[in-house]
């Protein structure tokens, strides 16, 4: 592991902190299937965060702490806004995991690819719930 991978993994952790924060206001605006999707997504981001903390500590890197609050892409005033914000959160988190790929190999790269893939799949699920077509993008994580 190199300095490049330490930076990329720290950026991934910062993005996971932000995603967990965002699902707070998102979740309260949603009901039924969408609310369940938000809970599942938040739980998945918490698992990624916890794993990243362990990985960074193992590398001798101080994990960046969560900020008290994060700027959301738009105010979460209703269910539609909540699903748009959730989609954007997944797209942004996909991008940081994509940036981990070039600085990793083997098992670490597979972990990053799985994280990128999970974000892409959740973004697709949010577009479906929000009835946005197309529900996929050709290059998840590309900004």
């Amino acid at each position: 592991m190199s300095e490049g991978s330490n930076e990329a993994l720290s950026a991934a952790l910062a993005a996971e902190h932000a995603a967990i924060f965002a699902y707070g206001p998102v979740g309260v605006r949603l009901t039924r299937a969408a609310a369940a999707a938000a809970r599942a997504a938040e739980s998945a981001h918490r698992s990624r965060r916890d794993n990243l903390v362990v990985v960074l500590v193992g590398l001798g890197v101080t994990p960046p702490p969560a900020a008290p609050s994060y700027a959301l892409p738009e105010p979460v005033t209703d269910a539609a806004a909540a699903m748009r914000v959730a989609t954007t959160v997944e797209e942004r988190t996909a991008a940081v995991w994509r940036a981990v790929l070039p600085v990793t190999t083997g098992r670490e790269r597979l972990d990053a690819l799985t994280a990128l893939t999970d974000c892409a799949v959740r973004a697709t699920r949010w577009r479906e719930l929000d009835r946005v077509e197309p529900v996929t993008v050709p290059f998840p994580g590309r900004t």
Partner: protein
Amino acid sequence: MFPVVLTSRVRTGSRDDVPGIRRRAVLLSAVLAGAAGATGCGLIDEKPAPPPPPDPLAPLIGEALALSATYRSAAAVSDPDLAVRLTAIAADHDAHAREVAQLIATPLPSAPASGPPPSASATSAVAALRAAETKAHDTAVAACLAASPGRVALLGSIAACRASHLEALT
């Protein structure tokens, strides 16, 4: 052949009567003949360089174009909502083929005229698409894990996109 010409010129030259030189000339011609035989195309013509081995990512292009054709065939016989979904996925696969071709600096082959004949029902068509997409996802994951740092991000996005197609087909 070149060695024969050399031998005959030495024989008719002014030193043709000097045995030592003539023996060396004959010996030289034999060596040259052997060299010519070994290379197979003479001493003057350069042997053409062998074609470079195909890029390991080249098969991904054909795979993406074949998938795209399969989705378009299925879209043609699907209800309008599903057709919109399938056509959008086909466009993703087309974009993947273009980007991989650009990455490995190879011309994009013309797309197959049409995919396989569509299945009898929409349900079986979607099941067949899911199977093909799952296989293609595995291909992209393997390519991503084996890729050099300069290629891995594109392949990671393609793998993630194919997984999102499976979600979209659910």
